[in-house]
């Protein structure tokens, strides 16, 4: 089997849980989009072209409010700015001799989950691995939206509630294993969670949108950690 095929298959396998988690979340999105007055086609195309949870939920609010396109652009910019950091990080894992056009296609699939799984893969990141992840994740996201928009609340609430934690379980499965061997990483994860909790409780800052909160905390904590605990070459390539 060629390397491409191997990478693509590995990507699909690792992408299945992402796709399943997406199915649950996008189902909820589909229901909300239908409630907001979008047609099934509109909701489905929205999910296929945007592939982002927080940005889409916020976008629905903007559409409902009948706000201007400029306001929509600004909302999406703020909420999704974290992808900019992720793309910077991802760019460092690509082979120098990788054909340039891959970057345009890989960019489509920079989501929290796909990024989290890609960046934690050892060594150089193959675009074919990313395409595998995308191939498994995008149908889940798009199809889930379609189902939600068509069927409304056909799934029992019990099941939806349970599926709601799938993505968080995945996040933990991405960040915790490397932290087992690395006390600094563990500390950073705990500090991040603590700060996130504080942010959701304190007056004033708790009103900040979730996308903006992620940006602020990421810049502060990752920035501070990079200053206090600069990463050496060896740990980087572990």
């Amino acid at each position, binding site marked *: 089997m060629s390397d491409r095929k191997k990478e693509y298959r590995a990507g699909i396998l690792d992408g299945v849980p992402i796709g399943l988690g997406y199915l649950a979340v996008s189902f909820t999105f589909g229901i909300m989009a239908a409630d907001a007055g979008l047609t099934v086609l509109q909701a489905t195309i929205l999910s296929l072209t945007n592939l982002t949870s927080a940005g889409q939920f916020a976008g629905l609010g903007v559409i409902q409010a009948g706000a201007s396109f400029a306001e929509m652009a600004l909302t999406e910019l703020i909420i999704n700015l974290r992808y900019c950091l992720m793309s910077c990080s991802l760019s460092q894992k690509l082979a120098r001799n990788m054909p340039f056009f891959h970057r345009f296609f890989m960019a489509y699939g920079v989501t929290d989950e796909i990024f989290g799984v890609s960046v934690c893969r050892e060594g150089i990141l193959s675009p074919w691995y990313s395409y595998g992840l995308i191939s498994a994740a995008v149908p889940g996201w798009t199809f889930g939206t379609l189902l939600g928009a068509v069927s409304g609340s056909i799934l029992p609430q019990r099941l939806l509630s349970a599926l709601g934690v799938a993505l968080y379980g995945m996040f933990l499965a991405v960040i915790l294993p490397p932290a087992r061997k690395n006390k600094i990483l563990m500390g950073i994860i705990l500090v991040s969670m603590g700060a996130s909790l504080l942010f959701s409780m304190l007056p004033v800052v708790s009103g900040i949108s979730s996308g903006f909160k992620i940006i602020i905390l990421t810049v502060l*904590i990752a920035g501070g950690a990079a200053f206090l605990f600069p990463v050496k070459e060896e740990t980087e390539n572990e």
Partner: protein
Amino acid sequence: MSNVFGYIAVMALVTYLIRMVPLVLLKKEITNTWVKSFLYYVPYVTLAVMTFPAILEATDSPASGAAALAAAVILAYRGKSLIQVAAAACAVVFVLELFLVR
């Protein structure tokens, strides 16, 4: 509501550009140690911030969310795969809510 597709186009364009521009512009390897370290830490901070405390509010009862968190932490720490951890977290919520939520 007639220009829903207009809104969708704006959303898709902005979101794609945010993802694409850094990937296309950053062709060289970054040598600055601080920037490298910063980018290395980004996913851990981002995913941790997104997970907690949001997981407690993702279900119908905070207690089942907390139980899912505990189960996922234990399994993830033991190095179980993505799908195993995610499925276990869902299963814990489902079973607990049979008792917790009427």
